[in-house]
Each structure stands twice: as structure tokens, then as C-alpha cells.
């Protein structure tokens, strides 16, 4: 085991049994989250990034979903092999998660303080009063003004940004080693998004928590993460440090993705030119082609791409990619 690894995912596959057939949401996914880092998982809708997050927390709705293979080792302990009772003890404690939509993931009939205190009392031997004090302390930590008073308010009394802060307070109340953040700022306005990302990064540095950040926004990736995993149609297709990925994208999909986003030229200094299009669309996960899932949209694709899934190979230091032609191009 890698000494600075906190979470090791190996060969994870999650499928859904649906009326229209078997949906392979995540296929043979492996990655390592290192201690104290922010690792981003990026991809478009349906690439399997959220199902990956749910699989790590063992929250995949079963049925129709099922984790069919793989291991998820948190400090060497395989979370997929333990009982549900043991897993309940891990969630919100050693590993916790924040979701995209704070309004639907908070309980509308409990006060914010009660929801934080509940988490604390589940995992720590504390009195009610101590748990409440911890709740207020957490609200102060996530910089909610007047925390003692806000703790007695209900989710609907808070703004979207404040609700997301409250979610973060719940997630961090038990000092988790790993925080999974699934699109934590997607529902928020850009000035609020900047506040929340800044908060997550500051808290991460204060507490030493490792963060798995799931997002579709490459701008957010560039500004917050150290390393990044790119997913397409359920598979990891590229992994690199953030600097290397943006400078030397090796997979044609990553390349296309970077070319398709407008860059805010006034700030980045980039020249505004016609956006690069990736033709076509993501294939249906219930009907994946045999070879590389990106082949139908790729201008480099040949017969081998359409027949065989390319393996992940390390082409640059700490930079792996799954493409038959990655070495030839770029």
C-alpha cells in the first residue's frame, strides 16, 4: 500500500439493471486519493462521476444498481467488504459527502443545529449540550454569521450559499479523513461559488482532510485541484496533475473538452477564437460500442479503436491515458 494514499479505489464497476438493459455506469475504475490533496473527477453528464461518488459511500440505490466488482480501501480497509452497520459508522465520520443541491439534501423539518448535532451524537460519545456546542462551533467555522442564532433556524430560512455552508458543517463535524464533494457549487451563483470553493480549500488546509471533488467545470478544476481524473462513458480515460493535464492533454476527448470552453480571454489572456466542437454526443451507457467509447466522435479513430478498449498507459510522468493514438498526437 502506498504510504501517502488515504483512499485507494481498485477495479470498481457499478451497473444498473434497467428495463432497457444493463447500464454500465462505472467500469473498472481505479485511482488513489493521496493524503491532504484535492483530486478532481471531471466529466460531462452521464460519465459516471456521481455514481463513482455514491459507490465509494455505498449509497448506490440497490436495486436497480449494484457494485459488481472492485475494492474501495480507506486506509487499507476495504469498505465494500464490511457490513452495512460498519459502513454506517464510516459515513459522516471517517468519510463524508456534500451534495449538489443543498435544499434537497437537508432535512426541511429539523433546524440546522439539530442536523449537525445529530451527526456528532451518532459518531461521538457526547451529551446533547456538547453536540449542540459543536454544531454552533461548526457553523462558526464555515463562517455563518451569528452561528448561535442560525443554528436554531430551518433550511428554508437560509439562502442557497448558507445552506451549502451548513452542509459542509455537517460533513466536517466529525473531522473526516476524506470529503467527497459532488458538484458542490453547481447550483450556486458565481460570486457565491467563489466563496464556497474558497471555504472548502481553507478548511481543507486547516483540517488536513483529503478532498475528492466531482465537477463538470474545468475552471473549478484548474483553480482548486492538484490532480485530476477525466472520465468518459463510465471509464477513466486520463489522469494527471492539473498543470500537466491543461498543458499537455493527451486524450482526444480531453483535448476537445479544453477547446470547447470559452476562456474569459480578458483575464486568461487567451485569444477568443471559434470554439472547438466535439461532434456527436456521448453514447448511451446501456449500449456501449465494443472498443473505445469515444471512437465515434474522434477524428483519430481507426479499426483498432473500434474493436479494442485501449489500456491506461503512463506516457508522461504521473500522466496516464487510455488512447491508442495518444503517443502519436500532441
Amino acid at each position, binding site marked *: 500500500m502506498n504510504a501517502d494514499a488515504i483512499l485507494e479505489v481498485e477495479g470498481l464497476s457499478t451497473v444498473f439493471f434497467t428495463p432497457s438493459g444493463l447500464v454500465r455506469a462505472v467500469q473498472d475504475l481505479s485511482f488513489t486519493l493521496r493524503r491532504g490533496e484535492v483530486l478532481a473527477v471531471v466529466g460531462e453528464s452521464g460519465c459516471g462521476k456521481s455514481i463513482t461518488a455514491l459507490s465509494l459511500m455505498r449509497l448506490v440505490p440497490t436495486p436497480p444498481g449494484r457494485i459488481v466488482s472492485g475494492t474501495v480501501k480507506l486506509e487499507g480497509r476495504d469498505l465494500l467488504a464490511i457490513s452495512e452497520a460498519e459502513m454506517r459508522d464510516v459515513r459522516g465520520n471517517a468519510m463524508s459527502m456534500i451534495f449538489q443541491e443543498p435544499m434537497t439534501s437537508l432535512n426541511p423539518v429539523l433546524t440546522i443545529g439539530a442536523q449537525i448535532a445529530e451527526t456528532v451524537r451518532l459518531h461521538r460519545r457526547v451529551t446533547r449540550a456538547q453536540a449542540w456546542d459543536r454544531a454552533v462551533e461548526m457553523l462558526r467555522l464555515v463562517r455563518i454569521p451569528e452561528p448561535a442564532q442560525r443554528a436554531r433556524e430551518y433550511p428554508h430560512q437560509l439562502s442557497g450559499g448558507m445552506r451549502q455552508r451548513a452542509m459542509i458543517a455537517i460533513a466536517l463535524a466529525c473531522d473526516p479523513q476524506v470529503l467527497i464533494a459532488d458538484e458542490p457549487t453547481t447550483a450556486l*451563483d458565481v460570486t457565491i461559488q467563489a466563496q464556497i470553493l474558497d471555504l472548502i480549500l481553507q478548511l481543507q488546509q486547516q483540517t488536513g482532510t483529503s478532498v475528492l471533488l466531482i465537477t463538470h467545470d474545468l475552471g473549478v478544476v484548474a483553480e482548486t485541484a492538484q490532480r485530476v481524473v477525466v472520465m468518459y462513458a463510465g471509464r477513466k480515460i486520463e489522469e494527471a496533475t492539473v498543470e500537466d493535464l491543461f498543458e499537455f492533454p493527451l486524450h482526444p476527448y480531453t483535448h476537445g473538452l479544453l477547446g470547447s470552453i470559452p476562456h474569459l480571454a480578458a483575464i486568461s489572456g487567451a485569444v477568443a477564437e471559434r470554439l472547438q466542437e466535439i461532434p456527436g454526443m456521448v453514447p448511451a451507457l446501456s449500449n456501449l460500442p465494443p472498443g473505445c467509447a469515444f471512437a465515434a466522435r474522434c477524428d483519430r479513430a481507426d479499426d483498432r479503436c473500434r474493436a479494442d478498449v485501449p489500456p491506461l498507459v503512463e506516457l508522461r510522468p504521473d500522466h496516464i491515458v487510455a488512447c491508442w493514438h495518444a503517443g502519436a498526437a500532441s
Partner: protein
Amino acid sequence: MIPVLQVEDLKKHYPVKSGFLRRTTGQVYAVDGVSFSIAPGQTLGLVGESGCGKSTVARAVMRLVAPTSGRVLVEGTDIATLSKAELRPYRRQMQMVFQDPFSSLNPRMSAGDIVGEPLLVHGVATGAQARARVAALFAQVGLRPAQMDNFPHQFSGGQRQRISIARALALNPRLIVADEPVSALDVSIQAQVINLLMDLQRDQGLAYLFIAHDLAVVEHIAHHVAVMYLGRIVEIADKVTLFRNPVHPYTRALLSAVPVPNPKLKRKKQLLEGDVPSPMRPPPGCAFHTRCPIAVARCSVDAPVLKERDAGHLAACHLADG
């Protein structure tokens, strides 16, 4: 040249009713005095955060809601006060594309019927003639005419947005009001739709009122940009000036908050404190003073007006240097 669209001091207030007798107990100042104009073939980007009133501006321009006051001039004629029948010929001049390509298409109509409906409603074409026009529109927006008989659920999000655009183009409008047309789409699909909109503008001289919260998208597509905050425009200028030389502190903060996909760029973010105040009780004076990093006592009393700094560059701030 007459602007395609000129909006003068547009206001839309919604009454808030409460209590047993549903008495009006307050007003939501959704749009509170907005003015701008769009020249033929140009794009005005209207940006701002949720609740700033940008969608209400779009709806009032389209007369989907009746403005409380102000004038909306379409090629010189004020449509804000026209009756439904009088409004009809002007409706042909302006069409709308909505954000959500799932809820803005009737699931029970075929894609071809959706695109052809404006032709029937306005008596432009029927039968085989209409069908030929629809096929041409499909080709124009990058859909196969063979897909005309499919229903909306058989299309992906990006394709549905193409259907919306084809429907908007059916009557050869001069102006398209696009309310967050790409924000529901994945980035690779977003690029396809942005390129399509820009190609159509180049080929047909369309004017766009392009509403978005994504500043990078607006910078890419717009010629002029207006920034809204709590129902008012706080800064408006041509694109290059607004993005390179913003003077209003809100515009600056907004630009600073946008995540830029370039890890080598280490910039100091200027974070705004707090949230947008409620449009029911906008703060006195400058509505932005509660979050403004440079506010002084005067800002909480005196509402700044939009003042011209350079030709075509207006900002509403007492302190903006420039």
C-alpha cells in the same frame, strides 16, 4: 440606423399578497428602471446572478409579462402598450429561445410540427410549403430533415435546443431573445450551440438579446454587455471595455469570481461578502452597498445613476474611478 430593440426605463414590479384578504403588502422590484438598445446584427449580453431580473427583462421585452412602466420599442414602435391583436405583427419580428430544452418543447408534438407551428399561426405557409420550409430550417440548424417526425424525447438536450432555435427562426425574425440558451447543456454540446448561434447571426444579420450567468460565454458571443444587480443595470459597455476595463465594483467582483481553466494563472480573488439582498426590500441608496468592498457612507443614502464615462461606457457608482 434604428435599433432593432430599444428599452427605456423598463420596470416590472410584482405585488406581494398575503393574509386572509390577499391584500398587497409589498412589491418585488424585479426590474426597476432598465434601458438599453440593440442594433441590427448585434448581440447584447445581459449578465447577473439569480434574481437580478435578467429573465424578467426578457419576458417583458417579449410581452410575456406586461411591464409596469417604461417603453419597449421594436424597430421604433412602442409595443409595451399595444393590444394583443396590434402586437401580432411585431411578434413575428422577435422570437425567444428558452433555457430548458426539456420543458420548452411540447412532448406530444413531433419536432417538425413544433418548428412549423409559427408558420401556421401567422398564416405564412401551410401544407407542403410549410413542410419544405421546416425541412430547410432543420438543415440550417444542423438537424436531419428525416428527424422531422420524431418526438422531443427522441432527441438529446443539444438537439432539442437546435429544435428551439429552428422554431425561433421560422418567421425570419430580426431579434432573438435567448434566455440562458446553453446553461443546461454539457460543455462539448454548449460549444456546438454557441457556434450555431454565431453562424446564424453572421448569415442572417440577426440581433440577439443573450441572457446568461456565464461570463465566459457572454464574452465569447456578445458585442455589448450589460451587468444587472437587483433589477438595475450597474454597468454597460462594449465587450472589450467591460471585460478589460470594468469600473463598477460589482462587475469587477463578478469577473474575479469566474473560475478560469488555466492552472498557471494564480490570481487573487476578490471575494464578495454575503448574499444578494431580497428584491422585496432592496437596500436604500446603492443596492450593492451591503456587499461592496469600497462603499462609503454616501452609498447607503444616495442611489447612483448610470453615468457615461467614455463613449458608450456607462456605470452607476459614486466611487468608480475611470
